[in-house]
């Protein structure tokens, strides 16, 4: 079932678009979008499941406080999508469960 986003864009003709992938599926976003805004505009589906009770969540506060928009970006888990600007070629994965420790700096 396609879950249609209930967000719509204000007209902003002329803004450049970028393409990123979410779990392998290409989506387009506007260049200055936060990743959370891009995900919300794309789909109304949950963008993560909670680590303890496995319940669905998506971006809520949009200002870096609630941590409900965590996603994996370019291999880094627990990234706050609302505090991250989209980039051409960004590889996004939706999180489920607790990520492993990142390990040491190289």
């Amino acid at each position, binding site marked *: 079932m396609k879950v249609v986003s209930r967000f719509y864009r204000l007209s902003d003709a002329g803004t450049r678009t970028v393409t990123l992938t979410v779990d392998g599926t290409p989506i387009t976003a506007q260049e200055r979008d936060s990743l959370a805004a891009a995900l919300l505009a794309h789909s109304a589906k949950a963008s993560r499941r909670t*680590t*303890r009770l496995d319940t669905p969540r998506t971006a809520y506060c949009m200002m870096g406080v609630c*941590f409900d928009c965590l996603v994996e970006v370019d291999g880094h888990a*627990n990234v706050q999508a609302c505090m991250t600007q989209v980039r051409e070629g960004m590889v996004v994965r939706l999180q489920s*469960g*607790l*990520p*492993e*420790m*990142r*390990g*040491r*700096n190289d």
Partner: protein
Amino acid sequence: MPLQSTETTIIGGGVVGLSVALGLLQTGQQVTVLDGADSDLRASQGNFGLVWLQGKGSNYPAYARWTSEAVSDWADFADLLTDLSDIDVHLEQPGGYEVFTEQSEFDEFLVELENQGKTLGKNLDAEILTGAAMRHRFPELGSKVVGATFCSRDGHVNPLKLLRALRIAVTRLGGQIISNATITNITPTPSGGFSLIDRSGQTFGAEQIVLCAGLGAMALAPQLGFRTRVRAQRGELLITEKIGSPLPFLSSTIRQVDEGGIQIGGTKADAGLDDGDTLEFTARLAQHAVEVFPQLEKTRILRSWGALRIMSDDGYPVYAQSSDHPGAFLVTCHSGITLAPNHAGPLAKWIANTSDAPNLEAFDESRFPFLQTV
């Protein structure tokens, strides 16, 4: 017809006040807890959550024994809280390490541990490890670790769930918790009992009172003739993002909470009543964590905060009844999480003066000099 039961009012709704409240309710008393405002200084909402024995009371045998008793009773206490509140406080007692990156601090601690062992004997169940022995046991450990001690009886709990469990348990046993009642004045009344006034001017009457107000005792203890003076000692803490990989062990400065985040703490500073956090100390904590567990290097810190410990002049708990005003008790300590089972058990019996009440003379305030209030 049953006798009228004693009515006790507890000033302070943190972990200490609520533990005493729970214990008094179990002795059959009627209990009211006057809790302060959200903005009051609340050690119960900022602490590290250790249930810890090693190193405690090295120069104060009664405190070493009191802590050992609490650690033994914690598992039953956690079960009682779950029964009464339906909340799992996530107690774990897997044994814990004190880990040192400074040789002098390690040497000093070994003296303390030896002294504590003289009191507790085999009940301490501690082990001393060199840096090399630690790295053999835990290959992921950092090269800067010079040594560590292990005590099989140490553990930790989720302190915020503990606070919530206590509030629910007290309420379900019939205790009344009144919020936003920051008491500023206590006056003994001529007929016995006390009159309490809060910041907004509201008055409460009380038959018997137990002052469990943490740093609130600075202003309130002298009003009841207590000679105990408390001061604040600031600790700063960090918490990281939640991760699924378990840390190899529990230590007194680095622990993984049940939700997955790693809490780092243990600083001590005199900052008056300022419970803020500083770059200097939070950076030092992060560095310490990475020196112990280099694999934490890329783990992100989500929050940092400061919280104030409540310290008596010698750092040990005070359990005292006012000689000027019988019916007024003072309870203060800095390890309210570890000692919670004692506060809900033997201490409450001592306050209620039950037939099986323990002798708590070692924690009376007569050990402090009397200072004239100026």
